[in-house]
Structures are given as C-alpha cells and as structure tokens.
C-alpha cells in the first residue's frame, strides 16, 4: 500500500471512520513503527482537536430568531399560508366583496377555533411536579413574597453573589447582570439530587421583586431536580422568550448564554419582558 494511501487512512482513523477492524490494528502497528505516519497521526489528531475545542461559536442574533419564528409560526400567518394568492384575488373588485365576506367568515372561524383549541404556546400547562424548574421558581417566589424563604447572603454586589455561588458548590457559570432601576438584594444556593443551584433576587424602589433561578442547560432533564418539558426546552433553545402570567406574578423563561433562566416577578409583564427578552 502506498504511503499516501496510508496517510489518508490515518485521517479516517482519527475520525473514527475506519470501519475494518483488521486494518485498524494493522494501521496502529504501522503508526507506531513509522515516524512519518506517527507525525501524520499527531497532526491530524491535534488539528481536529483544536478546531473542535477552540473555534469561536456565536449564537444566532435574537432578532434573526424572532424574524424566522414570526414568519413560520402558524399564529402569525395561517391565513397567508392558506391563501398565498389572496392579494391578487382581492385586487379584482368583483371578487373583493365576496372575498371580504369569506375572510370575515374565516376569521370568525379562526377566532372560535383559537379559543376552542389548546394554545400552542401555553407551555405552562405542561409543567408539573416539584422537580420542574418552572414550578420550583413559582413556589420559591411565593415563599419569598410570604417571608418563608430568605436570602443566604445579603449584598448588592454581583461579584460577591457569583463568588457565593461558586463557594457553595454551584458548578456552572452564573449570570448576575446589573439592571437599571433594580438593585440586587441577595442570593440563595439550593440543593437537589446532589447538585447545587443558583438563585438571586432584585428589588426596585416600589418594593417589587425580581427573582432569578438559573440552571445550566446541561442539567435540564439530566438531573432529577431540574425537569422541564421538552417542548418548552426546545422553544427556549431556539432563542425564544416564554412569558406567562398567573396569581398576579409574571414568569419568564429564557436561555441566557448556557443557562436556562426562570424569572418570576410581581412587577409588570412589559417591564420584565423589556428587562430580559430584549437582550
């Protein structure tokens, strides 16, 4: 076998694409005995490794994600997709009048249908069980409001909060952003299924609270204490912000860097969306 052919086989070996077990063994022996093949093996292996580990990875801009979802979401454009030639149709006056009646009938139908069918984005209804992070966040916020859960550290310094998380066993990287008109109050580290999780709280001058529970995406549904419905997880993974309102609180979920963050607040929905969804 020619040396060049052997070198190509070394590449396939590095990529785990050498399927023939015998030639794999033979190749290993050749790599060990031939310095040129050994150098080839090292170069291929190293270049693959450095590309995989050190190549920069940028998330899709939120604006692009939102634009795409807006254009394909059935809630946004059911009518246009059902009737792609509607513009041409309505440009003819004789058809326009009957067209308008038809549109009204269809819209009425869609409205009725919308209320009778399950809301596509009503992910809150899918979340259940004490280990679900959406449920945990709501319960924790309820406990904070009623004075049953107090911060373990009181500080308005984000650096101190992050150090507190690290020192108390939170293994993932945490985000403690500073937000205009909101002051950090303190933080809590909770434990579940042998893992530690980060929580922190903000307040504003009106006494409203924002509570943030962040869990590394890696833990979701892998750790028993951090469950979330796959449907909602996929929705967040796609860069969406999910917001729901219940019991006078706003709950917002968003993937921020590599964490899934659940935010609960008794402030207005608009304000919470502006704080967390616009970033």
């Amino acid at each position, binding site marked *: 076998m020619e040396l060049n052919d052997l070198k190509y086989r070394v590449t396939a070996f590095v990529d785990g694409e050498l399927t023939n077990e015998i030639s794999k063994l033979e190749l290993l022996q050749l790599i060990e005995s031939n310095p040129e093949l050994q150098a080839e093996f090292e170069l*291929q292996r190293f270049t693959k*490794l450095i590309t995989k580990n050190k190549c920069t*990875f*940028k998330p899709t801009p939120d604006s692009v994600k939102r634009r795409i979802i807006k254009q394909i979401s059935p809630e946004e454009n*059911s009518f246009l997709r059902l009737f792609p030639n509607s513009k041409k149709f309505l440009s003819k006056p004789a058809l326009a009048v009957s067209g308008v009646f038809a549109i009204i009938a269809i819209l009425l*139908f869609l409205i009725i249908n919308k209320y009778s069918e399950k809301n*596509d984005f009503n992910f809150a209804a899918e979340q259940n069980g004490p280990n679900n992070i959406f449920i945990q966040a709501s319960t924790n916020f309820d406990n904070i409001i009623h004075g049953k859960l107090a911060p373990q550290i009181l500080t308005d310094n984000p650096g101190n909060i992050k150090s507190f998380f690290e020192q108390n066993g939170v293994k993932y990287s945490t985000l403690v952003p500073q937000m205009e008109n909101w002051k950090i109050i303190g933080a809590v580290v909770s434990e579940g299924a042998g893992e530690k999780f980060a929580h922190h709280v903000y307040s504003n001058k009106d006494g409203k609270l924002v509570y943030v529970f962040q869990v590394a995406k890696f833990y979701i549904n892998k750790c028993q204490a951090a469950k979330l419905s796959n449907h909602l997880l996929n929705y967040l993974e*796609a860069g969406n912000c999910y917001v729901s309102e219940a019991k006078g609180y706003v709950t917002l979920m968003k993937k921020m860097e590599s964490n899934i963050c659940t935010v609960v607040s008794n402030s207005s929905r608009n304000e919470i969306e502006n704080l967390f969804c616009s970033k």
Partner: protein
Amino acid sequence: MFPLILAVIKSQNELYKEFEREALPHMDALYNFALRMTGDSDDANDLVQDTYLKAFRFFDKFERGTNCKAWLFRILKNTFINNYRKTNKEPDKVDYDEVENFYENVKPFSSDSAHLEKEIYDNLLDDEISRAISSLPDDFKTVIILSDIEGFTYDEIADFVDCPVGTVRSRLHRARKMLFAKLYKYASDKGYVKD
C-alpha cells in the same frame, strides 16, 4: 368547507410543532456555518432566514428519521450557491498542487511534538483559529467545519459536497494539514514556537 379548513389548520399547526422540535434547535449551527461561508454577519442572517423559510415550506418532504441537521445544511448550501455566492464572488478555485507544496513545507511533528502542540493550543486565541479556518479555500473549509465542528460523518459530508467518500477523506486530510500550517505560522510569527 369548515371541517376542511380546520383539518388544514390543524395539520399546519402539527407541522409547525414538529418543525419547531426538529429544525429550530440547529439554528446556531447553521448560523455559524453561514457566518464562515459568507464572512459577513448581514449575509449570514439573511442566509439562515432564507434557509429556514425554505426548509419550513418543504418540511413535508423531509424524510422522517433521517438527520434533520444534515438536511438543513444541504438547503443552506443550495441557498448559498444560488443566492449569495452568485452575487458576491465565484467560489475559490483550489489549486491542489499549490496546496500540496504549501503543506509539504510544514515542519512535521517530531519528537517534541507534545511541547509544540501545547504551545500552539495554549497560546493561540480562539479568534485566530477561527480566522485561520475562514481563510482556507471553500472546499477545505467546508469539510473541516462539517467534520470537526459539526460532527457529520463522511457519508453525510459526501452527500453535502456531492463527492465520493474517498474524496472527502483526502480533502479533509489536506485541509487539516493546510490549517495546521496556518496555525503554525501564526504561532511562529508571534514567537510562541521556535523555527
């Protein structure tokens, strides 16, 4: 008519839900590939958006159980060739002899290769590595990204680049040597490794 409309809307909703589950999670991978292929964030934004709109339109044609990510990448490639490369530039023509000469001059790994590896790995910045990949000819850049970053198999890459598996293997082999030469040169220029 109403039951018919109801059925169409329901099937559209189900299709969207499936698309949301199968296709949307790959958006970041597509965006990064688009960014590397176009070299421009605005073009990458448009390319990803066009790809997803096209993919959604033809999602009923997607063969269930096959690799959705690979399917999306193929749509992106075709969109790139049809809409972007045409208006921007012709693809890089790879002179394989020149590549051969280029990487034959690379200092081979020797007995101190572990030390050399460490120097390059520890000192080169992530951006420098990304820049080195971006500067590779399109054919080489594509196979490196698909194999080493996106984790596609040789079969999937062959399907993507319309080449036999053997060509993918040899192209990948050369691409890595060329990339290594560039990384070595960066490291050498910055004094991280001694010639």
